């Protein structure tokens, strides 16, 4: 059910407009690959970015996110596939004719021009939008990025954060159709980064400009985006709104890349359909009745399975617990997300291998239905919470707590806290 865009209604009118108009997506990548010799930096990627959307490509270094952005900007031409802007192919269109604004990590301000000249540079090639003069446009944009008096300054005299805001203003000045940001905040310190990302998101929402954002920082990606594409080895593993990516990661890679996670893999030993248990093992029986009781919750009880992990059987819900609510949201079917993983997945049967994850914050001390007896291995004090690594029969378990832990503890989770993923 990961593909259901249940956040969509909340994330802006533009997306809704796109659904009603059935307008082509602002940016579409159709089977796009970029190969350098033998290696594929981008491998058969199909993505659609909606009009007005804040879309983020996130992944570890070398996952192809920056190359994907450069293919959209026109700095690289794909070796296969098509990039379309509003339904029109842009193959062979040089970057200067694509009407895109680009912001780089290192600001890339022209050092031999003043801040004002930098912001106004793109107006050499396009009339300022809104019928204003060049100077008015420059002033307007410096105002927008909260640097109203910086026009005559030398870019090098500005702080990193200020330089990056000038770079954003410069990219926006000619009124581009698309804003592309390549790790724009990676060179800034953590506090500044958080402030700037709020500002960038505010500006984006004000202008309603379609934005593609590249970052390796999954926290940033979750905080800023309408939708996120988590990339790995040149292709997205999952494309979905941040909450979906976090709560219902499609794959083990996404589960582990986005936030902390505990991933378990084992064999299905029994299947409980609405309370009834089919089992071919004896030891699964002790827990399963509880599981059914907790999760039944009245009508249409979710299905749970027992999974054997290192000799213990853990109960895992296999039906999506939020599914009924999601269905209420108008579903943007013309922009399918990449992997319809759970839909395709066959219902698990006894003997199948099953992989699932449980977020550290879902593991409760002395609570939950599946109980794991573990010992504290290490703890990191993070301020608000403490991240504790537990040793559970030789496996690491991550737990978030407010209270210090030590020695032997019992942690637990309910079947519904577990989320089944692709390995």
């Amino acid at each position: 059910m990961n593909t259901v865009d249940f956040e969509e209604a909340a994330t802006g009118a533009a997306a809704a407009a796109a659904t009603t108009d059935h307008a082509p997506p602002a940016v579409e990548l159709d089977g796009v690959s970029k190969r350098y010799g033998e290696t594929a930096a981008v491998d058969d990627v199909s993505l659609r970015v909606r009009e007005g959307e804040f879309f983020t490509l996130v992944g570890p270094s070398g996952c192809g996110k920056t190359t994907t952005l450069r293919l959209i900007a026109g700095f690289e031409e794909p070796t296969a596939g098509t990039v379309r802007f509003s339904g029109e192919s842009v193959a062979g269109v040089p970057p200067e004719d694509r009407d895109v604004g680009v912001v780089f990590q290192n600001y890339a301000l022209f050092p031999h021009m003043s801040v004002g000249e930098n912001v106004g540079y793109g107006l050499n090639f396009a009339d300022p939008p809104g019928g204003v003069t060049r100077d008015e446009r420059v002033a307007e944009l410096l105002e927008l990025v909260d640097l109203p008096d910086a026009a005559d300054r030398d870019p090098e005299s500005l702080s990193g954060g200020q330089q990056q805001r000038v770079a954003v203003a410069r990219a926006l000045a000619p009124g581009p159709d698309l804003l592309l940001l390549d790790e724009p905040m990676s060179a800034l310190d953590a506090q500044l980064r958080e402030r700037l990302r709020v500002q960038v998101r505010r500006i984006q929402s004000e202008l309603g400009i379609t934005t593609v954002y590249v970052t390796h920082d999954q926290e940033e990606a979750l905080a800023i985006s309408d939708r996120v594409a988590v990339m790995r080895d040149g292709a997205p593993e999952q494309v979905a709104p941040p909450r979906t990516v976090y709560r219902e990661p499609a794959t083990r890679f996404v589960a582990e890349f986005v936030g902390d996670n505990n991933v378990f893999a084992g064999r299905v030993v029994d299947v409980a359909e609405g309370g009834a248990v089919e089992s071919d093992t004896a030891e699964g029986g002790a827990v399963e009745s509880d599981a059914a009781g907790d999760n039944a919750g009245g009508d249409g009880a979710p299905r749970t399975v027992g999974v054997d992990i290192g000799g213990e059987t853990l109960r895992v819900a296999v039906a999506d617990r939020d599914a009924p609510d999601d269905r209420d949201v108008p579903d943007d079917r013309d922009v399918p997300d990449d992997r319809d993983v759970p839909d395709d997945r066959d219902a698990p049967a006894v003997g199948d291998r099953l992989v699932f994850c449980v977020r550290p914050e879902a593991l409760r001390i002395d609570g939950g239905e599946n109980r794991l007896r573990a010992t504290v291995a290490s703890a990191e004090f993070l301020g608000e919470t403490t991240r504790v690594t537990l040793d559970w029969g030789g496996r690491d378990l991550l737990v978030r707590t407010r209270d210090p832990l030590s020695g032997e503890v019992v942690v637990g989770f309910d079947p519904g806290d577990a989320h089944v993923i692709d390995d």
Partner: protein
Amino acid sequence: MSDSRRGRGARSLRDRLEGRLLTLLAVATSAALVVAFYYPVGTVLVEAVRVDGAVTLGVFAEILRDPFYFGELARLFAGESPIAVASDLASPDRRLGIVGFTAYQAALSTVASVALGLPAAYLLARFEFPGRRTLRSLTIVPFVLPSIMVAVGFVATFGRNGTLNAVLGALGLPPVDLLFTLEAIVIAHAFYNAPLVARVTTAAWESVDARAVETARSLGAGPLRAFYDVVAPQLYPAVLTGAALTFVFTFGTFPIVLALGGFQLATVEVFIYRLVRDLSYAEAAALAIIELVISLGVLLAYLRYEARNTVRSRGARPLPRHSLLPSAPTARKFLPRVGLAAYLVVAGLVFLAPIASMILASVTGGDGALTLEHYRFLLDRQQTGAAFQVRPWPAIRNSLLFATGATLLALPMGVVVAVLTTRRYRGRKLVDAAAMAPLAVSGIVVGLGLLRGLVFGIEVAGWRIAVAGSVAIVLAHAIAGYPFVVRTVAPGLEGLDRSLIESARALGASRPRVIRDVELPLVWPAVVAGAAFAFAISIGEFTATVVLATGADAYTMPVAIERFIGRRLGPATAMGVVLLVVTGLSFVVIERLGGEHRGL
């Protein structure tokens, strides 16, 4: 969305014209290269394989088997047993031949240049002292000093009546005559090439990351061991670069040997010149090809080595420099400084004595008293000289005119080639090599080709095309100078942050527009330096000029100096000082002009 894209498309019409401009410049540059380099050189080389209309390699075979050229090795080419040849080569009375001698003096010059250059690199890279930056900048000066002027300086220093003998005489020591000896040639070559070795080695030394040395030290290596393990491996490639270039330059040496060695110590290049004067074009051309093959062989071997050993260290924190004054009176602090002091004496002798001697000789009469008679001679010659005689003012005027013309040609050519060779595309190396070929080909060959082609006239589709000797000289100078424009501008372009260019493009600027608005302004100091280089190369160019200026009144200052050397040294030194002053003033002017345009 698509509307606004079309809007930009319409405006980009002008951009497209600008795009054509770049293509046009590239075509013009290629055409200039073909007309002024590839075609003339080609015609010369063809002469080497065409005797009486038939294609033959006989001329080569003769040269290769002639002991006059190849010494004992010629017998090897003639089919004698390698063992016999090897044993004769090992014997003291071996014959080297002209090619052998050329290689031998180049090897000695390379050793001397490295020996003289390395301490300078040590001083410049590892010590801090007032004037260090200036001194570092000055290491470029010998490279652009007109070689014939330097030769005059060396004659004034080491000649029978030179400063060295004056000093020896004052000390009651017997005089020495170093002129027309191998030693003088080798020292003069070191004068030219030691600064080159020093420059490349200093640059490599400065890019050694202090953190690497600190890591080695923290792992237990002593200072010497850390130098040996961490610093030295990063210096070898640079030293080898300097050595390889020195070998190639000194293998193709001409004015220095012509002035200091005469025909007794002729190198290949000098002999080619002699053959040209004797109108033995086929033999000259064949010899030039052999010279080219050897030079290119060394260069290629070196380039292969470089490709394997290039280490790019970016953002390195350089090693901290020591003060020249020792901080503590220990032997370890003192010894290097004492060594450097001794080195400075030698370096002063090699680098300053020739220039100082030249200036001194220009104001010293035959009796040893101070006089202005040599300058008066120049003035007299200007006023009363016959038409066939070399007069100073035309020489100065020609030099300045040719240099201005050559610079105006070389600058756009160099910038275009720099732009083309810093982009990424297939065949870039080929373009690079084709564009840099003028560096490797002897000026005599270029001059000869231009003389017998464009100057004497060629028939193209029934039209007879002939250019004046002066135009040919400007072309030859532009061809000789523009690789230096490329070499100063290209690294700057290469070092530019790619995202600056991409930002400009995303903002709507076409590629040529980006060059104009972003790239050139940012590398402007390098463009100015390239212009200064091209100007200096032209002012000092002797080899092609002396071929093309024969008989014509297109002689330049270096040619005038060479013609004056024949009689007495005085007028030649006076002319040398004039050349020095004119070159120096030109640099100041170029710098000023460049400075004004900086804000472009």
